[in-house]
């Protein structure tokens, strides 16, 4: 499970970095507040993950790698595209925790997977990207 927790941590770190960039390119009040709320949520999850990994004493929480954006973010359109991209990535990381957890821990991972999938849907709607949904959120590919 440590491996999956580390991957989730990396995804949350990537999301935090991305939302810092995304916020710069959004101006509409509701879009800015959505980005800020997402940033806070990912920050809380990141902190939880650091604690969990720490408790497992599996390894020191990995230092956040320098995160490279998957594409250049220059305006609102590319910022929204990045928001969808990072939420999809976070959803994938939490989905990978489902088979290695049980009970409440699994429900918790599913809740994070679901939150990211729903957030990705909202960003797609704001960006006018269709379809808004996918059959298997969190499935890579």
């Amino acid at each position, binding site marked *: 499970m440590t491996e999956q927790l580390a991957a989730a941590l990396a995804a949350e770190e990537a999301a935090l970095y991305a939302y810092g960039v995304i916020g710069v390119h959004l101006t509409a009040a509701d879009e800015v507040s959505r980005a800020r709320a997402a940033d806070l949520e990912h920050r809380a999850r990141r902190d939880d993950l650091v604690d969990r990994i720490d408790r497992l004493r599996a390894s020191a929480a990995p230092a956040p790698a320098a995160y490279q954006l998957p594409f250049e973010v220059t305006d609102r359109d590319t910022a929204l595209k990045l928001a969808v991209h990072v939420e999809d990535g976070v959803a994938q990381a939490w989905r990978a925790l489902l*088979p290695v957890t049980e*009970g409440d821990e699994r429900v918790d*991972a*599913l809740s994070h*997977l*679901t939150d990211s999938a729903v957030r990705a*849907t909202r960003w797609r709607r704001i960006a006018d990207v269709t379809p808004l*949904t996918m059959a*298997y959120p969190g*499935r890579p590919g």
Partner: protein
Amino acid sequence: MLTNSRRTFIGALVGSATLAGCGVFDSEPEPPPAPDAFQPLLDEALALAASYDRVIVAQPALAARLTPLAEDHRAHAADLARLIGAAAGSAAPSVSAPSGGADTTATLRKAEQAAQKTAVAACKAAPADRAMLAGSIAACRATHAEALR
């Protein structure tokens, strides 16, 4: 021509053979196949797809928006049926989707939220090798509820 006593004797033989036959089956009762734990997920996926179809027929203007959501449910139904071993579409949905001709995006949304809960419970109880399938279906149903807002 058989005498009465012989008839009785033969009848008794047949009867005991029948009873013996029954006894064999009684001692090893054919267990009714227990429904798969994911059967409710399959039933709901089929019922939801049908509900979307009804709304699209009633309000063709919504087709572009609703068709991809119905397709998601059909993808779930096909994969669940493959997993369970049932033929997709053959099982009569045991879960009532909002029906009665009053389907709207609002009733679809309620049905998605209820179906999400079923999938969360299925994911929680599932063995490890089924957890991701149920989890993604739960998340998908939540995104549908969002898309219907």
